[in-house]
Structure formats: structure tokens, C-alpha cells
């Protein structure tokens, strides 16, 4: 019982304090899970984070679910995910439904009009961050060509983004290249190092 209560409180705090969406709550999860409750070692947490990042979907709930599952099984998973997401969803529903009932007042319309450019800026910054990471990973040229092709597919041919992403995922998994070979030799070298030490 105590474990479930700890799980709930830990992830409740994470959910309520994690400003900036899921990624904003990663340091908070680290603080609760590694430092306060010691459910995982620092190293395990790093590995888990790397892995969670390569899978699709919201990051905060993947971490909460996995850690909850590790700490106390299926109900631990439900508990941690629930504690992470429930309070903020309730807040959001209450605020938005009460806002829309006063939607016709001119000053309320002025308020919502002023927020649109702010969200535009935040989206533009996110756009830049994604491009920046892509350029760091693949270089200017490949990112540029890929982006141009993707843009044409999405907005001139109107293909659903899911199909474009699906095709790219298949290419990423199927493609063979030097990188793969290098990687294998690196892995081998690492395991040999491990054996010798």
C-alpha cells in the first residue's frame, strides 16, 4: 500500500510541476525516481530514457508506465500513468469549458486573439529545434533534400503524414550502410573491452 501511495505522490508531483509538456518533466522524474525513492540507478535511468526516446508516443507517460510497472506490476503502471496525467486533464477541461461559455464577450475574443501569435512563436521555435537536431544528425544537404521532398508529398500531393512517416521508418530499418558495419565493430570492440577488464 505504501508503495502505491509513493508511486502516486511521486508522479502526481511530476505531472503538476512539469511545465513545458512531457520533456519538461524528465528532470522531475529523475529527481523522484532516482534521488528520492531510489527505484532505479542513475545509469538505468539514462538507458531507459535513451530507449524511450527512440519509441513513438508521449515520453512522460512511457516513463511513468514503465517505472510504475517495474516498481509494482500492472497496477503500479496504471497508478503512475493516472497520477501523471489525470490532474492536468481535469484542470484543462474545467478551464476550457468555462472559457467557451463566455466566448462572445469582446474582451474575451481580444484575449484569445492575442494568444495565437504567442503559440505561433512556440511552434516556430519547436520547428527550429527539430530541424536543428535533424541537421546535427544527417547534415545540411540530406536534411534539405529530405525536407523538400517531404513538403511536396504532404502539401502538394496531400499524402497523410502517417504514411510518409511509415515509409521513412521502413527505410530507416531496411537500409544498409557503412554506419551499420562501423557500429557492429564498435559494439564488438566494446564487448571485448568489457571482457578484458
Amino acid at each position, binding site marked *: 500500500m505504501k508503495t502505491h501511495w509513493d508511486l502516486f505522490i511521486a508522479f502526481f508531483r511530476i505531472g503538476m510541476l512539469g511545465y513545458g509538456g512531457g520533456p519538461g518533466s524528465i528532470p522531475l522524474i529523475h529527481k523522484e525516481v532516482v534521488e528520492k525513492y531510489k527505484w532505479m540507478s542513475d545509469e538505468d535511468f539514462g538507458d531507459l530514457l535513451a530507449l524511450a526516446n527512440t519509441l513513438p508516443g*508521449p515520453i512522460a507517460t512511457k516513463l511513468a508506465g514503465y517505472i510504475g510497472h517495474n516498481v509494482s506490476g500492472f497496477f503500479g503502471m496504471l497508478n503512475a500513468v493516472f497520477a501523471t496525467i489525470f490532474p492536468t*486533464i481535469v484542470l484543462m477541461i474545467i478551464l476550457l469549458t468555462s472559457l467557451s461559455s463566455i466566448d462572445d464577450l469582446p474582451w474575451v475574443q481580444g484575449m*484569445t486573439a492575442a494568444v495565437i501569435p504567442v*503559440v505561433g512563436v512556440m511552434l516556430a521555435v519547436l520547428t527550429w529545434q527539430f530541424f536543428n537536431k535533424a541537421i546535427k544528425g544527417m547534415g545540411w544537404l540530406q536534411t534539405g533534400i529530405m525536407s523538400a521532398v517531404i513538403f511536396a508529398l504532404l502539401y502538394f500531393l496531400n499524402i497523410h503524414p502517417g504514411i510518409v512517416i511509415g515509409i521513412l521508418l521502413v527505410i530507416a530499418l531496411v537500409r544498409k550502410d557503412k554506419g551499420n558495419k562501423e557500429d557492429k565493430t564498435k559494439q564488438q570492440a566494446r564487448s571485448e573491452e568489457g571482457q578484458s577488464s
Partner: protein
Amino acid sequence: MKYWHIFLAFFIPGILGYGGGPASIPLVENEVVERYEWMNVQEFSEMLALANSLPGPIATKMAGYIGYDEGGILGAIIGVFAAVAPSLIIMILLLGFLFKYKDSSRVKRLTQYVRPVIAILLGVMAWQFFAESSEGIGIWQTALITISSYLLIERMKVHPAFVIGAALVYGGLFLG
């Protein structure tokens, strides 16, 4: 049928949103605004602004609210479940397997290849927001709010929740 649509609208972004919650924002917009037409761009942007200024994961806040708006409590539960469950199940089932291959270039390429798609989707959304705002409150007001919020959030590192709060006050006083 409605519940099935709610499920699909969040299942697809959940399973394709590489790069955490923010990566699924444009995918959710694609389903919610363009495919099912549950909201227009204006309503979506208002919801996104509020979602951004509240704490907690962004993808589940959107799923919960839109699900509730379209199908009540059950709709909210289905939306959140669709957003969260598939990737969580994959994670728990495949963890051992993935740990083994996490250094493989193929697995690393998964996130890598999806980034430009997400960047373009986000960029087009940002453009739509600016265009919509210019139509509504004019280009000068839009530019003023855009530049000052950029400076506040990115240069002066003011938390977005405060900037959104300030924009609300400004809009209520001068744009009503």
C-alpha cells in the same frame, strides 16, 4: 462510430509521434482539424495555448480535452488510452530486445528520419497561426506580439505560461 474516430484520432499520432509529446501536436491537428473537423484552427490554437500554459504532458492533455469535448467522459478516457497505451505496451514488451540493439544505427535512424517530417508539420502550423492572426488582428499587432513573445520566451527565458498570461491581459485590454 464517434468513439472509434476518437480512438483513431489519438492512436495514429501516438504511434507516429517520434520525439515525445510535442512531435504529436501537428499529427493531432491533422486528425482533429483537417480530417474530422471537430475544431477550426482558431479553436485548436486556443486549446494549444492553454495546454501549453498548464503543467503536465502535452499529448495527453490534448487527448483528454478533445476526447471530452467530442464524447464526454468516455471520450476523454478513450482519447487518453489511445494516446498512451500503444507506445507504453510496445515499450514494456520490447524493452529487453531494444536494450540489446539500442546502439544499432538502424534503431537510431528511426528518430532521425522522422525529425524533418515533424519539423515541416510544425513549421506549416506555425505559419497557419501567423496567417490566421494577421487576418484577425492585422499584421502590425501580430508582429508586435510575435516579436515581444519571442524575445520574452527565447531571449529572456520567461516561462511561456507568464507570456501567455501577459498576452491574455494585453488582448483583453487593447484588442477587445
